[in-house]
């Protein structure tokens, strides 16, 4: 039972759904029709390119391609996180990049090499799984940093009052780190709660569509959800635990 190849002309019909969205957006005076068009166009081009690259890599598997793909993914994910948090200092940004790259690679390696038992450099496993792992790590990090920065700004009085009383910056800032980590983890845990009942997740759906036995597909799905939770936790924890230390100097002055 293989997957039914989509006929390109029939495939084009899916874009008709965008017209529905466009129509409703116009009616509701949501002035984002340009964004919708640009986004769907970009998605199409990016995925076609990814499809071409993946076809080439899967036909000519080479460890270098796998490594290059992971590096590219980490770079783009880091840039996106940093673009949403421009006010951070350079060292904090470095901590974010390294945490994302380190924890992502570690989790993908554990998943592919140890749990699945495939070669880490085998692109068929490593590339799609990396995409999910790094993508989720990126979302988690963005969420955590946004909450960390917003809370620090909103509670500036608390930070200053404690500092003026002779409390160490470490003690003042750690609760903000813990809070941001919680903010990033809760949505992932909630997704696990609804899994299988409210949602049949993308990877599982994809595997079933392409003919994998449902019981095999769920094993992968369980594994990826746990891996995602772990990578969000690791990446956010590492980024913030190294990052918050860049917010004060050796005179215990907080520089935000």
């Amino acid at each position, binding site marked *: 039972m293989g997957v039914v190849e989509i006929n390109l002309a029939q495939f084009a019909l899916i874009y008709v759904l965008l017209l529905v969205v466009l129509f409703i957006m116009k009616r509701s005076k949501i002035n984002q029709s340009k964004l919708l068009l640009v986004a769907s166009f970009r998605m199409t081009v990016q995925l076609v390119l990814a499809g071409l690259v993946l076809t080439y890599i899967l036909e000519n598997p080479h460890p270098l391609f796998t490594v290059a793909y992971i590096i590219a993914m980490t770079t783009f994910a880091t840039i996106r996180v940093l673009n949403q948090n421009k006010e951070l200092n350079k060292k904090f940004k470095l901590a974010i990049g390294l945490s994302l790259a380190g924890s992502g690679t570690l989790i993908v390696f554990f998943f592919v090499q140890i749990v699945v038992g495939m070669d880490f450099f085998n692109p068929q496993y490593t590339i799609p799984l990396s995409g999910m792992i790094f993508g989720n790590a990126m979302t988690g990090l963005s969420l955590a940093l946004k909450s960390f920065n917003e809370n620090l700004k909103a*509670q500036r*009085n*608390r930070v*200053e*009052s*404690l*500092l*003026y*009383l*002779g*409390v*160490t910056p470490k*003690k*003042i800032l750690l609760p903000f780190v813990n809070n941001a980590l919680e903010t990033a983890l809760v949505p992932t845990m909630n997704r696990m709660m609804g899994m299988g009942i409210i949602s049949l997740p993308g990877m599982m759906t994809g595997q079933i569509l392409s003919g994998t036995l449902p019981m095999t597909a769920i094993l992968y799905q369980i594994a990826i959800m746990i891996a995602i939770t772990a990578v969000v936790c690791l990446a956010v924890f590492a980024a913030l635990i190294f990052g918050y230390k860049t917010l004060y100097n050796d*005179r*215990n*002055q907080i520089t935000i």
Partner: protein
Amino acid sequence: MDKIFAIEKPKFGGILEYPKMEISSGNTTFIQGASGAGKSTLLKLLNATLTPEEGEIYYAGKDISEMDTIELRKEVILIGQNVYLFDETIRENFRMYYAYRDLPAPDDETMKKYLKLCHADFRLEESCVRLSGGERQRIYIAICISFLPKVIMMDEPTSALDASTAGKVLGNLKAFCRENGITMIVVSHDEKLSEDYADEVITIERRGN
């Protein structure tokens, strides 16, 4: 009288430049000056939450640039213009601030004593969320003074209080500080207050442009 602070012409932020000043130990010193003259900044320089670009500040004879800043701030507490209380009861606020300072919470009687000193004798179970700005200010001062620092610096401590309450609070604090050898440094716009309670007044001029 001993000098607790010797301030040797510190400069900050490229625009603030302070003259040579001294602050006597155990006294109540008021700092006055036009807005923008750097009164609040001076207090932050004194407890090393800011570092001057030039010049030195000596605390009890020691150059503060060579001191452990945390130890210094425990002795020289600054109460800023915007005080902070946790969204908890008054008792819990004492407990949390003491926990941040690694100290066991004081007993109820001690808390009440300091609250009374600051004319904030509310029930300890009262939630700080519902209190007014002036009430919060007084509770925060009570918590700070209960740490018994060597120096207490207050930036506009009576900004949210009416004149009569402001006078009572400051009068009580001054008497308490004198009794316990605590130096009090107050930045205030209120000239009446400084006439009534200052042992010394330092006026900072706005310099440059």
